């Protein structure tokens, strides 16, 4: 086979425009129309530095089967204008098959675009819009693209009605007319790829959701009833979804003065027996580590979602990166074993959060969930998630007959907890080292016992098969985690279609690492590729530290802001294959 694998999994579309052009609205409607028409897809957004408004790009991928991430190239670029296009150029890779549509009033086609493809179509969109009273370019673009890729007009019209009905007849009419105009000119883009529906998938019930929403929902599905919040990009949506939702289900969300407070609020609430969560990003997580250590030592379950962004420091708040692995695993002072998990897709944000709530509660330990800006903010069409039976189910003492020992040395390390209010269960939770009763102690025996107990309870737990998603067989094994799992799994599938056997291990449970299981899965591996999105190959170093890897193990990694793409990973697979 040739190195240039032809990838044909759906249609990738970029809509770009300057501030106020409304590309995100148009993109969102395209996505929803695809969803309603039985397709899958996703939309992400890329913006300039302005706080609000300013140039934006809506990046979509639509397909007749589930897709998790951009492919790495775009089939259609629709530029309402070219101002500040350079800001997005790196993200919008074009090739000779790409179709570019633009309005000549919006400036000259940039060199980088004209060098990539000859399929460049000029359409006077602005003029079309000006011919319709109240007409807007973005709605015309919507019609052109929807028509070009064969989305049914009625579906898009239905969305327009739902969206603009409340804005009055004039607005609605203008939008409708724009859409019609767009569909009319769709024929000018005859060489655009078409969406072809797959009868098998068409009727599966679908959801339209972001990873942040999915994580929040997973939390309440898992039994979360309390949250404390301090806003931070790109985690705020989790908190904003939880605020009304928790109140609705009889819980509470408190806006805290800072992250030191939010982490302690959830520890306090959870000490009170109420499953609790917070969400933040790197800078906030850094502020929380002292108190996550308290939760570890005092054995209070809490869940912290870290929606990662570019680091270090304030870094790049609006871009994705997997560079908080180190702090999540190793950021607590002292020997402080705790849980670290990572969702492997947008939909998996739901499962992983729900599972993490369950694990934290079962083991009375903090769990840090490493989501990221991509997973959190990508809007995705997914199959309606199955109900899984993971709930907060803490081991509690109900009736106390004899003296209660809060930190008793049980076989599995989990000691039944007395929830405040339980008569006879009174104890003092403590971050000082303590004896089995909770009394402060600096005796070597108590320290060793309690350290061993806290280690044992998370090392010995039965995590089942959820620690990773494993696919394929082969002596080339790719180990990955978090959002990078999506392009890895897609690339591996494409490689397999070309006859190359690749096994992928996407690790969901990062700490404690399931060393034995992982070594068993790696048993036949001749080569291992460890793939992730950060500069220091954090996961690779971590694996090396714990797992016996084949000599022929290589890290493939780069930091954000660019995601690792299916195409780039596929080309790494090819390199290994050629070796």
């Amino acid at each position: 086979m040739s190195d240039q694998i032809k990838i044909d999994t759906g249609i990738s579309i970029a809509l770009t425009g300057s501030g106020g052009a409304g590309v995100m609205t148009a993109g969102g409607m395209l996505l929803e129309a695809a969803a309603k028409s039985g397709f899958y897809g996703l939309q992400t957004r890329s913006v300039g530095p302005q706080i609000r408004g300013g140039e934006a790009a809506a990046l979509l991928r639509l397909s007749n089967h589930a897709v998790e991430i951009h492919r790495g190239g775009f089939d259609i670029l629709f530029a309402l204008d070219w101002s500040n296009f350079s800001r997005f150029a790196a993200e919008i890779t074009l090739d000779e098959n790409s179709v570019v549509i633009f309005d000549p009033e919006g400036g000259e086609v940039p060199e980088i675009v004209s060098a990539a493809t000859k399929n460049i179509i000029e359409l006077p969109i602005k003029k079309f819009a000006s011919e319709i009273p109240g007409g807007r370019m973005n709605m015309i673009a919507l019609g052109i693209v929807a028509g070009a890729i064969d989305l049914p007009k009625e579906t898009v019209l239905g969305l327009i009605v739902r969206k603009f009905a409340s804005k009055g007849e004039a607005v609605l009419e203008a939008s409708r007319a724009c859409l019609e105009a767009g569909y009319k000119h769709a024929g000018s883009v005859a060489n655009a790829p078409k969406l072809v529906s797959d009868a098998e998938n068409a009727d599966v019930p679908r959801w339209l959701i972001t990873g942040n929403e999915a994580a929040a929902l997973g939390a309440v599905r898992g039994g979360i009833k309390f949250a404390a919040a301090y806003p931070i990009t790109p985690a705020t949506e989790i908190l904003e979804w939880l605020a009304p939702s928790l109140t609705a289900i009889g819980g509470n969300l408190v806006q805290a003065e800072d992250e030191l407070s939010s982490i302690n609020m959830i520890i306090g609430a959870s000490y009170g027996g109420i499953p609790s969560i917070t969400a933040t990003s790197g800078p906030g997580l850094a502020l929380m580590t002292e108190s996550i250590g308290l939760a570890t030592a005092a054995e209070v379950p809490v869940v912290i979602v870290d929606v990662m962004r570019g680091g270090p420091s304030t870094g790049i708040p609006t871009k994705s990166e997997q560079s908080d692995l180190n702090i999540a695993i190793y950021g607590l002072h002292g020997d402080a074993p705790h849980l670290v998990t990572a969702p492997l897709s947008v939909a998996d944000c739901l499962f992983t959060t729900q599972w993490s709530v369950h694990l934290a509660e079962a083991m009375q330990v903090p769990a840090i969930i490493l989501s990221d800006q991509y997973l959190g903010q990508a809007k995705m069409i997914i199959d309606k998630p199955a109900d899984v039976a993971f709930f907060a189910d803490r081991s509690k003492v109900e009736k106390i007959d004899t003296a209660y020992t809060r930190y008793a040395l049980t076989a599995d390390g989990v000691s039944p907890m007395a929830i405040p209010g339980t008569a006879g269960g009174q104890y003092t939770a403590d971050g000082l080292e303590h004896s089995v009763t909770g009394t402060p102690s600096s005796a070597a025996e108590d320290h060793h016992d309690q350290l061993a107990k806290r280690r044992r309870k998370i090392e010995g737990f039965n995590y089942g098969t959820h620690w990773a998603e494993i696919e394929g067989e082969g002596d080339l094994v790719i180990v990955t985690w978090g959002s990078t799992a999506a392009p890895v799994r897609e690339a591996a599938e494409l490689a397999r279609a070309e006859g190359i056997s690749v096994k992928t291990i996407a690790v969901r449970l990062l700490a404690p690492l399931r060393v034995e299981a992982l070594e068993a899965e790696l048993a036949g591996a001749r080569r291992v590729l460890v793939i992730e999105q950060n500069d220091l190959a954090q996961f690779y170093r971590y694996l090396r530290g714990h797992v016996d890897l084949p000599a022929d193990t290589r890290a493939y990694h780069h930091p954000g802001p660019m995601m690792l793409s299916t195409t780039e990973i596929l080309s790494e697979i090819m390199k290994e294959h050629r070796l």
Partner: protein
Amino acid sequence: MNVSAPLKASDFKSDLKPVWCPGCGDYHVLLSLTKALADLERKPEEVAVISGIGCSSRIPAYLKCYGFHGVHGRSLPLGTGLKVARPDMTVIVAGGDGDGFSIGGNHFLHACRRNIDLTYIVMDNRVYGMTKGQPSPTTEPDWDSALSPGGTGLNPFHPLVIALASGANFVARAFSGDIRGTTKLISDAVNHPGFSFIQILSPCVTFRPEQKEWKSAIHAPPVEATDDPARAARRIMTDDGFNVGVLYRGDRRPYKIGDGVEHKTVADLEQEFQI
């Protein structure tokens, strides 16, 4: 324990021997707290005492209530989370001047403002006892110490004024040696809705032996408690710092978000994602 018989102060005391120095004011605070709890007719399991780190913050373990000895400076958020999630519990937050006004100053501001229905007791000895004698925010500007040779030169922090200015609903000053008065203030504070703050002057006999003199400096407030924060502030700002009693009683509504009732199921919430 026979729960139907009224409980005595000693029923609130654990068997653990305090680590405090002989003569430390905190012993008296412990005593007053157990008396107040007995007077309040709470059951030990219905009370949670939450603290930070410091000599004074050791207090939860010496009680038979639920307790949480958290990290330095974060007792108020711990207590806030507990109280919001478990409004049925009586929550008392306790600690020192360093814990509460230095590292914990921001939480103090915002807890007052939030007006959660809990009681915050600061055992103020104007020093970091636990770390062996450094100045705290309430320390006199000329107090000499290794870390601030010759004194800090800084105006002391006015906890009562800040509490008032930030919205605390009940503000009082007590002296640990005055068991009867302190007991009464604690039970009044617990009974008062919203955020109640008590500064208890509690001598550190080891690093501030001169505080043994506080006993003779203490006096009752010349006038009744007011419900006007501006008047209370002026009064506190001009008193000599040894005026004990209730200094302000407000009537702000305590913090409340949800009503604790399940209006929707999780399945209801999921509707919004359906296409």
